[in-house]
């Protein structure tokens, strides 16, 4: 690569950095026991080969899953509330079904290593066409930037192939929503990636994530409180 003027990337450094971040996230409970219980997934392929699914790959997959879950919940709610009409309604339905397919695929790939789905509160943005489209543009542009930043860090080539083929679909969605919102679908000749910490900060700032996952373990009956 020395004769090329492409942006240099310290891959090992980037992965260490990502692992540190993942460790922090795990301590905060966001990724749960992903890394610790990834034994089955991580056993695939010898370490250091293109077949190996690294701990970092699992973390990236869960990160992608969390963004797909957010999008999926958003479109599904928009569809369920039936406040959108015409082209926005059609786009919500079509894009929603794709995001749900992404979620299902990531969940299947991760199995018990998958993060749990938090509860969302979209605060009414799914009930008004302009607010819906504005939010959709933000979500889709964000997803494009997120996949873009992570792609060069994915070790397993199969996962990388899937990630890039989803990355460009998210870009199509972004352009579609921008078109419907009435802004330029492709603003610049080059799209930029955004790092995980910044993406997560932006997602948190929306306050759309209302709380931790609903408990899936069976609850005891509500205590009689008189």
């Amino acid at each position, binding site marked *: 690569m*020395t004769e090329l003027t*492409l942006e240099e*990337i310290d891959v090992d450094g980037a992965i260490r950095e990502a692992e540190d971040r993942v460790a922090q996230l795990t301590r905060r409970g966001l990724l749960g026991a992903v890394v610790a219980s990834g034994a089955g997934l991580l056993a695939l392929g010898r370490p250091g080969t293109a077949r190996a699914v690294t701990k970092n790959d699992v973390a990236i997959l869960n990160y992608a899953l969390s963004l797909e879950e957010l999008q999926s919940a958003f479109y599904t709610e928009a569809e369920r509330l039936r406040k959108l009409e015409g082209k926005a309604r059609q786009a919500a339905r079509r894009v929603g079904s*794709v995001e749900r397919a992404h979620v299902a*695929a990531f969940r299947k790939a991760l199995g018990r290593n998958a993060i749990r789905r938090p509860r969302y509160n979209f605060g009414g943005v799914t009930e008004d066409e302009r607010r819906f489209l504005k939010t959709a543009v933000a979500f889709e542009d964000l997803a494009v930037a997120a996949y873009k930043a992570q792609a060069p860090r994915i070790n397993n*080539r*199969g996962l*990388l192939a899937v990630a890039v083929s989803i990355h460009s*679909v998210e870009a199509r969605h972004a352009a579609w929503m921008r078109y419907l919102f009435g802004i330029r*679908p492709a603003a610049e000749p080059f799209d930029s990636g955004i790092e995980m910490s910044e993406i997560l900060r932006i997602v948190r700032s929306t306050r759309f994530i209302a709380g931790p996952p609903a408990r899936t373990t069976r609850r005891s009956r509500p205590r009689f409180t008189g």
Partner: protein
Amino acid sequence: MSEFAQDPGEETRGNALRRGLVALGGVLGGSALLGWLPEGARSARGAAQDVRILNFVHLLESLEDAFYREALKRGKLRGDMRDFARIVGRHESAHVAFLKGTLGKKARKIPSFDFGDATGSRHRFATTAIMLEDTGVYAYNGQATSLTPGALRAAARIVSVEARHAAWIRALAGRSPAVDATDALLTEAQVMKRIRKTGFIKS
């Protein structure tokens, strides 16, 4: 659904979803995932291969660039379609400049192009632009696993813009901007077969 019925069974429709997502699901099962990847995806990544791939996409970007230039020069486009050609044409010029600058002396010569009547009407322009932009996306995607991380980082900044162009022109033409859950990954041979069929490459 009916609004998009005219979408002429893209070869990627359904297949990509099945292949891509089934492959993803198969990761855990340890299936022969690499068998699903395009030819070349298993070859050794390195500077020489980056140069070969960048030359390949440089040809595609040059083709797109020339197509929009001619469409604007010919002057048959109006309104939103003309805006699209103008803005997207500028993007393609920027991609060509970037790739040419990156390749430097290793840049292969770009052939001359002949677009025949493809720029002669709004409809023919849109049909051709959709084909070129979709193919561009599939071409970059198909090379992703063969690039070094540094080159992939650069290519990823371009491919999503190509996907935005594809969705944009599809919306303008009344077709679905995003058909599948995953975009296809085409090999260089598959892409070149598609391009050669158009007869746009002269020499």
